[in-house]
């Protein structure tokens, strides 16, 4: 018969001080849904087919800030020489990525994957507008940090579809299921 101290040695709690209670789960779900709402609302002003290119407004204006007010010179070069000459394509790409971020984070499906996409997109936005006039830098820092929290906590498993579907994926031997286990 094992003693309590032996059991504790076999199954150590890696983070005994973390709160896994109802309040923590509700807080994570609220964060994920709020970040989803952020991207949903952001999809609203990326207007095809020219995305503000004609009047120097909208997405074109903010993308152009990366060149007018450089933050990271290699990124500014990329925007000037690759993105702006092919702006319609990049406009649609931005719209689809941000709408997908909103859709998937809202329902909590493949949340860790979309959290990584969110970090990348937040970084791109940060490097575009950080030095522009009247911008509040912590807006963009907090966007990055919020996605890091969603990634680190696998937030879709709390009140999200990841939490419901992982049981199915775990029992499946298919490649897609194994991949989704990692992405959720």
């Amino acid at each position, binding site marked *: 018969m094992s003693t309590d101290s032996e059991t504790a040695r076999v199954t150590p709690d890696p983070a005994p001080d973390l709160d896994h209670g109802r309040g923590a789960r509700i807080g994570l779900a609220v964060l994920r849904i709020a970040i989803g709402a952020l991207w949903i*609302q952001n999809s*609203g002003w990326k*207007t095809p087919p020219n995305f503000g290119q004609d009047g120097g407004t909208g997405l074109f204006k903010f993308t152009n800030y990366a060149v007018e007010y450089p933050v990271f010179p290699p990124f500014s070069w990329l925007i000037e020489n690759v993105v702006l000459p092919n702006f319609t394509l990049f406009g649609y790409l931005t719209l689809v990525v941000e709408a997908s971020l909103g*859709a998937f984070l*809202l329902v909590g499906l493949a949340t860790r994957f979309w959290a990584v996409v969110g970090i990348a997109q937040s970084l791109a936005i940060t490097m575009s507008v950080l030095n522009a006039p009247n911008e509040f830098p912590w807006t963009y820092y907090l966007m990055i940090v919020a996605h890091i929290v969603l990634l680190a906590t696998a937030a879709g498993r709390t009140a999200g579809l990841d939490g*419901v579907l992982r049981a199915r994926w775990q029992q499946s031997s298919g490649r897609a299921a194994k991949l989704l286990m990692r992405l959720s």
Partner: protein
Amino acid sequence: MTMAGSTQKHRLQRVGYGLSAAAAVSIVLILAPSNDAVRIAKIGPLAAVVLLVVAVLGVLGARTGQAALYLAAGGLAVAAGLLQLVQFGRSTNWLDGNGSTAALLAGLGIGFCALWYAAHAPRNSD
């Protein structure tokens, strides 16, 4: 059905009600002024009708456990989201929305289709 199967069914039902509630609550956005601070998604009259039908189908699916109702709700939302994505920024815009409308509908559609998959796919422990 095993206890695990029963728990899973209960979880699917809860998510079904949750998604239906999200669709229903989104209809309120039709009243939001055209102010970016409060309007998370642009909802026009036809989009509100679509959201209402999606919510009703979702609630019926959760109540009866009929996976086909989740598929109907998801299919309708995805179709409306794709229509919005295609018509957004053009002179013809039946749902009178924008990218935010498409993203919201896509999220609900993906959610209900995933629920249909979860309720429909075979489970070894059942």
